[in-house]
C-alpha cells in the first residue's frame, strides 16, 4: 500500500494546544509518527535570566496554562533551597491543599479535553463546570482564576480567608457527589471502554526507558510518585495512597487520573483537619537588593502530569544565571507519544495524545 505523509495539527479537533505531529500512514495505520513542537516557544527560561528573583514568580506559572501551580511550587522550592529560606508549617499545609486543588482542577480539565475529543459532550460539560467551581475557590484564595500567582518564596501570598476551609469541603463534596454519574456515563461506559482499551499501550520497561512519569508510568503498575519518593510541602504529614493500574493503555491512564482525583480530595480533607495555626510567610529580602548566594539546585515535584523538575543556577546576583525546567510533557509528548502512536489508527491519534496528558506549552516553554 502507498505510504502517505500526513500533517496532524497544530489546528485539529483532536488536539489540545499548539502542537503538531507528522504522521507516515499506510491506509489508516500509522507507520511512523514524528512530534513537531515549537509553535508555542516563548523563551521563558531565557526571559527569567533577565528578571529579578521575585519578578520571575508571576512568570513561571505561564509555562503551563492548565496547572500553573506546580510551576510556582518548584520555583519557590528552588529559590528557598538556594537562599536558605525556611517556610512556616502552616504554609506547607496551605501549599499542599492548594496544589491538590490544582491537581483536581487540572484533571477535570484533562477529563473535559478527553471526553470532548471522544464525543462525550455531556461529561465534558460536567467536568468544565466542576473545574469552574474549583476556580471559584482559587479566585477567593488568590484573586486570580487561572494564574493564581500564589506560592512564592518564603511561603504563600495570603492566608486562607475566613471560613475558606468550609467552602473547600462543600465544593469538593458537591463535586464528589457526581462521581457515580461520571462513572456511569463515562468511566464505565462500554463505548468509552472500547475506544480506550488497548489503545496507545506503553509497557513498563519502555515507559521507564523513555523517561515517562506520572500517570503514564503509574498506569503500567509502577508506584512512582514524587510526593512519596521525595516528600515536599506537607505530603508526608498525612497518609495517602498512590493509585495504579496494570495495563499501560489509554483506559488505564484515565482510570489512574480518576482515582488520583478521589485520592486528592481525601488528602485535602485530612490536610484541612491537621492544618496548624500560625504564620504563612517568612519575609524574603527587599526584591531590589536580593542577591542569592552562588550555587545550583535541582528540585522536583509531582505535577498533575508527572515529575516536574527545575534546575536553577545562581551566580550570586539578583537574577538567576540559568533556569531549566524538566517538564513531564516533554518526554510524554515527544518520545512516548511517538512510540505509542506506532501502528495506531489515525482516528486514535488525539485519543492517545490526550490520554498521555500532553500540554504543549510545557514542551515549548
Amino acid at each position, binding site marked *: 500500500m502507498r505510504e502517505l505523509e500526513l500533517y496532524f495539527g497544530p489546528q485539529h479537533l483532536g488536539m489540545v494546544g499548539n502542537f503538531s505531529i507528522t504522521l507516515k500512514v499506510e491506509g489508516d495505520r500509522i507507520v511512523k509518527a514524528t512530534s513537531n513542537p515549537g509553535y508555542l516557544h516563548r523563551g521563558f527560561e531565557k526571559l527569567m535570566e533577565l528578571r529579578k528573583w521575585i519578578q520571575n514568580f508571576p512568570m513561571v506559572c505561564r509555562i503551563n496554562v492548565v496547572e500553573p501551580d506546580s510551576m510556582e511550587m518548584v520555583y519557590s522550592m528552588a529559590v528557598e533551597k538556594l537562599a536558605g529560606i525556611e517556610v512556616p508549617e502552616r504554609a506547607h499545609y496551605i501549599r499542599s491543599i492548594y496544589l491538590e486543588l490544582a491537581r483536581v482542577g487540572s484533571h477535570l480539565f484533562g477529563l473535559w479535553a478527553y471526553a470532548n475529543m471522544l464525543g462525550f459532550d455531556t461529561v465534558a460539560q460536567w467536568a468544565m463546570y466542576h473545574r469552574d467551581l474549583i476556580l471559584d475557590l482559587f*479566585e477567593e484564595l488568590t484573586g486570580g482564576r487561572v494564574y493564581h500567582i500564589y506560592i512564592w518564596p518564603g511561603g504563600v501570598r495570603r492566608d486562607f480567608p475566613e471560613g475558606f476551609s468550609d467552602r473547600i469541603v462543600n465544593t469538593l463534596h458537591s463535586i464528589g457527589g457526581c462521581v457515580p*454519574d461520571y462513572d456511569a*456515563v463515562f468511566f464505565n461506559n*462500554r463505548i468509552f471502554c472500547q475506544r480506550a482499551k488497548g489503545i496507545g499501550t506503553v509497557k513498563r520497561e519502555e515507559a521507564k526507558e523513555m523517561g515517562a512519569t506520572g500517570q503514564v508510568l503509574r498506569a503500567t503498575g509502577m508506584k512512582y510518585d514524587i510526593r512519596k519518593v521525595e516528600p515536599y510541602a506537607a505530603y508526608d504529614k498525612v497518609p495517602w495512597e498512590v493509585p495504579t493500574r496494570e495495563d499501560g493503555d489509554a483506559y488505564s491512564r484515565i482510570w489512574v487520573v480518576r482515582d488520583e482525583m478521589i485520592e486528592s480530595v481525601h488528602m485535602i480533607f485530612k490536610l484541612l483537619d491537621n492544618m496548624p495555626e500560625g504564620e504563612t510567610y517568612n519575609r524574603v529580602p527587599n526584591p*531590589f537588593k536580593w542577591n542569592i548566594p552562588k550555587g545550583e539546585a535541582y528540585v522536583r515535584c509531582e505535577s498533575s502530569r508527572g515529575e516536574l523538575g527545575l534546575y536553577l543556577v545562581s551566580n550570586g546576583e539578583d537574577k538567576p544565571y540559568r533556569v531549566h525546567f524538566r517538564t513531564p510533557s516533554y518526554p510524554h509528548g515527544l518520545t512516548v507519544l511517538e512510540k505509542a502512536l506506532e501502528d495506531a489508527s489515525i482516528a486514535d491519534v488525539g485519543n492517545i495524545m490526550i490520554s498521555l496528558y500532553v500540554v504543549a506549552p510545557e514542551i515549548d516553554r
Partner: protein
Amino acid sequence: MAKQSLLSPFKAVRYLFKKPKTLRYPFELKDPSVRYRGFHLNDWQECTGCGNCADICPNEAITMVEIPDLEPKPGQKNERPELDYGRCCFCGLCVDICPPGCLRLSRDYFHIHFDTSTFVFFPHDEKTDNEKFLPSDNYSVLKASLSHRRQDNEGFVSDLKYSLFDPERVTMPEVSPEERKLSFIEQVIGYNKEEARREASRCLECKLCEEACPAHLKIHDYVRAIYEDKPEESLKKIFEDNPIPAICGRICMKHCEDACSLSIRGEALAVRWLKRYASDTIKDYKTTLELTPAPSTGKKVAVIGAGPSGLSVTYFLTLKGHKVVVFDALPGGGGMMRIGPPLYRLPLESIDKDVNYIASLGAEFRFNTRVGKDIEFEDLMKDYHAVYLGIGTTVSLSTRVKNAEKCILALDFLAENKIGKGSRVGREIIVIGGGNVAMDVAREAIRVQHMQYPGEEVITKTVSLENWDEMPASEEEIEDSKKEGIQFNPAWGPKEVVLDEKGNVKGLQCMKVKSVFNEQGRFAPTFYEENQMFLKGDMIVEAIGQRPDFSFIPEKLIKKLEFTERRKVKVDENGMTSIPNLFAGGDIVNLNLDAVTGIADAKTASEGMEKFL
C-alpha cells in the same frame, strides 16, 4: 470495576430537567471575590510618586508620569503611575511593594472600548467622579460597558504582613538607660557589618530622601555601597556632598528619614546610622578618599566659625585650590557641634576626625581666635578676597521672668560639661524648654547629677509651654529622656524664680498655659493666671532658644547687612549677603537650624564664591 452496561449512560438524561448552571451574562452577574485582581485603583492623596511599582513590574506596564498640575507634598514627587493594560499581567507585585499601600487592584475585570488608547490610563480614585465611576447602587454591566465607566470596588489590597519591603528597621544596639545615665558613655553603639548590610538592604531606592535632604546627598548610592559591603565607595559618595559624616552620622536631623517611603507604614530606613557606619568603619579618610586639592589659585578666603557650614565651605573651597583660613573662638573645630550635643550623643573624637581631615587638605584653622577681639572683622574684609559668615546662634535666650538672672543658660551649661571643667549641679534641677536643646540639657544634667551624687536620689524635670503634641523636641529624644527618668511638666509656663532668704534658688512658680501660638501660628503664649503650680528645685537651666551674636561686626557694616522678616541674614542665590565679598550660611540664614541645612547653605555659598572669585 462496575458492570459495563450500555444503558447506564442514560442516567445523564435526568440532568435535562435541572436548572442550567451557565450564567446568562450580562443579565446574571457573578460577583468577583473580595481579593479579585482586576484593574488598578490608586489613591492620589496617599501616593508619594516613589515609583516602586514601576520598578517591580515584571512587564514594564507601569510608567511614572509627571503631573504638572499636581502640587507634591514635601518630600514627595508629582509623578503618578500610568498603567498599560496591554502589558499588565495582574500579578499584583505592584500592590505588594507599594509603600503607602495606595495602589490596589479593583474587582473590575472588563473594559470595552473602540479606542485602544483607553487601555493606557492613570488609575485614580475619584469616587465622586461620575464620568469615570458608576456608583455601586446604580451599577449594571450593561450600563458600565456602554458608558465605559467602572465600578469603584477594592479587590486585592496591600497587606503589611505580606509586603515585599520590610517595614521594621534593624534594631540599633544601645546602652541601657540605667547604665548610660550614670556616665557620658555614647548611647548608640553603632551597627556592626552584618547589621548595617541588613539595614541597607531595606532601601527601595526610590530616592525621595535625596529630594528631601537639604544638601541632596546621594543617599541611595551610599546605602547601596554599604549593602554591597563597600564602605569605601560609600564614604566617597558621602564626601561628594557632605564633608562631616562622623558628625552628621550622629546628630543629623534626618529629613531623609522623614521622607523615606518605608516610614509611611513602617520604620524609616536608618539613613543616619548607616552614614555613621560608613564613617566609623573607615579609620583613615585620607587614604580611602584619595582627594587632592586643585592647584593653588592664589585666592584667600576667610571663614568665621568652624561649625558645620563653615567646615563645609572650607572643604569645598580648599578642594578648588583656594587658601582658606578658619577663625573660631573655641579651642577646636565643630562650632555648635563642639559645645551643643552632649558627649553621649557626639563624642569629641568624632568631631576631630572630620575637622582633622579637612585641615589635612590644606585649610588653616585658627582656634581660640575671636573675631572682633583677637582680630578685627574689617581687617578680614580687607585682607581676604571673600569672607564667609558661619557664626551660628551662640547666645542663649533667657525667659526674663523675675529673678531669671539666677538661672543658668543652656549653652553655658552644655559647653561647661562638654569642653569645660564640668559644672556643680543641684540635686533637683529644673530645665525650662521643650526643644531638643532642653532635652540635651536635661539628659546631661541627670548624668552629671548621678556622677556627683552617686547612689543618691536626684531629680531632673523639664517645664515646657508646649503640651505633648506640640513639643518641638524629636520623639526619640523625648522617649529616651523618659527612659532615663526625666520628669516632664508640659503646658506650664514659668512665672517667677523663687528664692530663699539667702538668695539661693528654691524653685519655679509656674502657670498653666492656655495656648502657645496665636491664630497666625506665631509664638504668642497666653496663660491661666489663676492656675499656678510651684516646682521645687535648687538649680534652673533655661533652654528656650538661641540668637546669633553680631556684635563683632562694626556698626557701619551691620547697617548695610540686610535681614529677612524672620530676622535671618538675607542672602542671594549665590549665598552672598547685601555686602559684597561677604557670604553667609548656617543657622543665621536658614530656619531649619540644623547641621545638614548648614551644609546645604555652604554648598550654595561655595559655588557662589567660586563664581565670585
